[in-house]
Every structure is written in structure tokens, then in C-alpha cells.
């Protein structure tokens, strides 16, 4: 059969190397390159990216050098120690425990949970939405009823109940418990875009080209909704930092011996702390605000870049 093509085209194997080199020179840049050039063009976004990455790396590595049980021991001598002293950079809380060290370990715990939660719930939500939207019919119907059921459950209450029932839990189990309740929004969003995308002719063309359903879903459709996925993931990451923080603040997140941003902010429950001992809660609150702002800023740039590469016209 190959001869058939040889016969009707002047191009032969001898030209292959030359032609593909020529084509390479004319090639359009890849998506990763476009995203990078978008960041280079936008300095504040670059700064935001460095803040996020730098901070995450710092707390992850820093927490390794801190002996948590020892840090959490009560030290009466340092009762509400003032900040900016050589031993206590950010002061100490009512138990005389270093706020700076708690902040590092607490951030590691909170951000770790947020990352884990984002990865698990977004992956699940994206797959659920893609499959439900692509297959349509009975599969979609069934999957949407499960979705409806999950939406019906009062989320916060369920988490509080689960956390109370389960006797021993830590960051990992907590992440999984949260994940059960946080994939729905993503899945609905992805499903609606997938429904529209599946109608397009390139999906039909892939089917007549003999491509399997799974490949069509994840290799053809998913790249086309990547900008939506990126934006949704960054936003849910910012939101997920708040999830753990909020519950720990209420006292239903991580156990109180485990420092987290939420347990630190709950120091502000005490009116004395709010006015006199501001250093016990303010750093954690500021950290959350800065992180969330930086993340949503980066999300915006990613979306712009992803849209640009969808058009591709705006390349470099």
C-alpha cells in the first residue's frame, strides 16, 4: 500500500530529514513555552509565583529541622514572650511555644493538606466530569444522581461528624475525609464543558480514526478544556487552604497538639490575644491572605497563557 503513496508524491525517504528540519524551524512554540513567556512578561505574576514556590519549599524543608513534640512542650518561662527577640522571632503563645516555629510546621501541615486535597479532589472531579459528559446517556444519568446525592449532604456537618467518630486521625486521613466532599463543584464544571466539547466534529473524527474512548477523553478532549482545569485547580487550591484552616479554627480539623494555620488563628478567639498578644494570630492570618492572593494571581496568568495557546495566535 505504501507504494501507492510513493507513486503519487514526489517526496521520498531521502527528503525526510531535510523536510522535517525545515518544518521544525517553522514550528509553533509548545504550550509550556507560551506559559513561561507569559510569566516573563508579567513581573508581579512572576513575583507571586516565586513567593508561592519559595514559601512552600521553605516550610517543607524548614519543618524537617523542627522537632515538633519538643516544640509543643509548654514552657512557662516564655509565657507570651514578646516578638522580635533573638530566641522568639515572632514571640511565643500562652504556652510559651515559639510562634515562628509553629508557623513553619503549621504551614507545612495546612499547605500539605491543601495540596493533597486539591490533587485528590480535582483529579477525581475532572475524571468524573469528563466521563459523565462524554458518555452521556445512562452512564451520565447515573453519575449525575450520585452527584445530586453528594450535593444534598450537608458538607461541613458531615465532616465534623466523621472527624468526631473516627478515633485516631491525622493529616492524611483528614485529607481523604475532605476529598470525599470537595470534588462535586469541579465535576459539574468539567461535565458541562465536556458535553459541549463532545459534540464537536474533531471528536467524531477521532472516533472514525479508530481512537478508543479513553484516549479520546483524556488525549483529545482534556487538552481542550485545560484552561478551565488550570483555573479551577488554582482556585480550589486557594479555597482548600481555607477548608482545613476553617475547620481547625472551629476545633474540628487537626487535633490541637498538631499545629496548623487554623489552630494558630483560633488564638484570636481570646479577646486578650486580639488586642494585647497580636503576634499569636496575626502572622498566620497574613500568611493566608498573601498566599491566597498570590495563588489567584498566578491562576489568572495561567489562564491567559492557556487561552493564548488555545488561540496560539498570540504566541510570543
Amino acid at each position: 500500500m505504501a507504494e501507492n503513496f510513493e507513486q503519487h508524491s514526489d517526496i521520498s525517504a531521502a527528503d525526510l530529514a531535510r523536510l522535517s528540519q525545515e518544518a521544525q524551524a517553522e514550528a509553533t512554540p509548545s504550550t509550556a513555552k507560551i506559559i513561561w513567556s507569559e510569566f516573563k512578561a508579567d513581573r508581579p505574576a512572576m513575583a507571586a509565583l516565586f513567593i508561592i514556590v519559595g514559601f512552600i519549599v521553605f516550610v517543607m524543608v524548614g519543618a524537617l529541622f523542627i522537632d515538633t513534640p519538643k516544640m509543643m512542650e509548654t514552657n512557662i518561662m516564655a509565657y507570651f514572650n514578646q516578638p522580635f527577640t533573638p530566641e522568639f522571632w515572632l514571640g511565643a503563645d500562652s504556652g510559651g511555644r515559639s510562634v515562628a516555629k509553629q508557623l513553619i510546621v503549621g504551614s507545612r501541615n495546612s499547605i500539605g493538606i491543601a495540596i493533597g486535597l486539591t490533587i485528590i479532589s480535582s483529579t477525581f472531579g475532572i475524571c468524573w466530569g469528563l466521563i459523565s459528559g462524554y458518555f452521556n446517556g445512562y452512564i451520565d444519568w447515573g453519575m449525575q444522581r450520585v452527584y445530586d446525592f453528594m450535593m444534598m449532604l450537608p458538607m461541613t456537618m458531615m465532616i465534623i461528624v466523621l472527624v468526631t467518630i473516627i478515633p485516631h486521625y491525622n493529616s492524611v486521613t483528614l485529607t481523604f475525609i475532605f476529598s470525599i466532599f470537595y470534588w462535586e463543584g469541579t465535576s459539574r464544571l468539567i461535565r458541562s464543558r465536556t458535553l459541549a466539547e463532545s459534540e464537536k466534529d474533531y471528536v467524531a473524527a477521532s472516533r472514525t480514526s479508530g481512537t478508543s474512548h479513553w484516549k479520546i477523553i483524556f488525549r483529545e478532549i482534556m487538552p481542550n478544556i485545560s484552561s478551565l482545569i488550570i483555573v479551577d485547580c488554582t482556585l480550589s487550591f486557594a479555597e482548600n487552604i481555607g477548608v482545613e484552616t476553617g475547620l481547625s479554627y472551629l476545633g474540628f480539623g487537626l487535633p490541637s497538639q498538631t499545629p496548623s494555620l487554623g489552630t494558630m488563628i483560633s488564638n484570636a478567639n481570646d479577646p486578650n490575644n486580639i488586642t494585647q498578644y497580636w503576634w499569636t494570630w496575626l502572622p498566620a492570618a497574613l500568611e493566608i491572605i498573601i498566599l491566597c492572593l498570590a495563588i489567584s494571581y498566578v491562576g489568572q496568568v495561567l489562564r491567559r497563557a492557556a487561552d493564548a495557546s488555545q488561540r496560539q495566535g498570540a504566541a510570543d
Partner: protein
Amino acid sequence: MSLIEIKDLKVHYPIRTGFWNRITDSVRAVDGITFNIEAGETYGLVGESGSGKSTTGKSVVGLEKVTSGSILYKGQDITKADNRRKLDYNRDVQMIFQDSLSSLNPRKRIEDIIAEPLRNFEHLSKDDEKLRVLQLLDIVGLDADALYKYPHQFSGGQRQRIGVARAVATNPKLIIADEPVSALDLSVQAQVLNFMKKIQREFGISYLFISHDLGVVRHMCNNIAIMNRGRLVEIGTRDDIYNHPLHIYTKRLLAAIPETNVNQREAHRASRLAVEKVYQEQQSK
């Protein structure tokens, strides 16, 4: 034996209504059509918008679930997915889509788009595959530097030629061309049609050429079927249809072809109105 035999094909879409989503009625998009396509010929399927042409085309290529009837290829009924798989059916029957932009994945480079059927059906080595893609681009008159570009970087006519290249990649026996040029302007239409004709001569491909434009069909097809509301109202050779139309619906479609000769414009208009009047009378009965 014909290349493909379509027998009493029906495609009905259910209409669901009410709280329980029960099927209360159905849209008869294709309602019992029968015709054969011979090897190497171009078979024209003509009808106005909504008459069920695309649905017929999609059923033949295996994209649409058929309600009843059969489509025989190599003696097997390919309305069943099992038979399609056994025959590697889509290696032999491919499709060119109406909207060239939406039929090419915007996130894929041209090389990957054209190579997609090759990867699934032929399993060539990397170099052979790239060579084949380059040859295909050459055959449809595109340069090699198209290889690593994205669909939006091409004009409508170029994109449609990329669609043609993808359809012929596995050297199929039949290509369903669903209004391949109706989204293009006139000069580009001729260009794409000429490439399609050239490819037909060189590879001996059959086309099922779907169009609402009898003018275009006249250039491409030897046998023509006229479709109206899911049924075939007239089947014949080009000569039959253009010179001795029997059905009033066909006459009406013919009357709708614009007359280029200025002197005959008035006469043409009069005859069109006359045909329209008869058609309306028959419709109201």
C-alpha cells in the same frame, strides 16, 4: 457486488418529555432509505437543510446508532459495532466534515492530526509515519512546514485539505464527504473539489458526496439521490436528475440553482415561481 449496500436504513431520535423522561415521540431523521455505492464512483446525496443527509453519512461511517435497517460492507452488517471492529471498518471508510475548523483538534499539531488514523490502523515506524504524513501533505498541495503548526494557522481551504489528507491517510475505499466545501467561498471550493477529484483518480476511492447544492454535485457525481424529510424521493444518473427530473421536489431544487445568463433571468424566475407554486400545492394536500 456493490461496495456498500444500504437497505431500508432508519435513524430515529427519541423525544423525551415529562417528569420520567419517557420517550413520547421521535424525530425521523432518516426514514427508510435504500441505495448502493459502487467502487470508484462518486455518489451524490442532495437535499435541503434538515433532510437527514448528515445523519445518513454518519450512519454509514459508524458514528450514528441506527434504529433499523442494514448497511452491508463485504457482506457484513456494519451497523453492529462488533462487525466494524472485526473488519477494521474505519480503515476503509473515512469521513470529511463540513466544518473544517471544528473537525481538527485545535490543540494538536497537523502531524498528529493526520497521523491519528495511521497510528491506530497501520502501526508504522516513526520515520515511515512521518514520511507518509509528508507525502499526504504533498498530495493535497501543502508544504512540509505545515507539519508542526496548529489548525488555526491555516485558511479554511487549507484546513479542509488537511481534513482530506487525514481521510485518505489509510488509503480507504470510501470517503463520506459531508458538505466538504459549503463553508468555503467559491474560488476555494473549486480548488478543494479538484484535489478531491485528483485523489479519487489516483487512489480509486469512492465518495458519498453530501451537498445541498445541485450545482456542485453536477461537477462531482455520476449517480445522485435526492433526499427530503428522511426519505429518498428520486434516484438517478446525473443526466436523469438534471435533464428529466420527475419529482416536484427535485424540480424545485433545480430551479433554485442561480441562472448566470442575464438574458434568461426573467424566464428562469418565472419557471422557478411556477415550480414553487406546484410544490406548495402538493405540500398543502
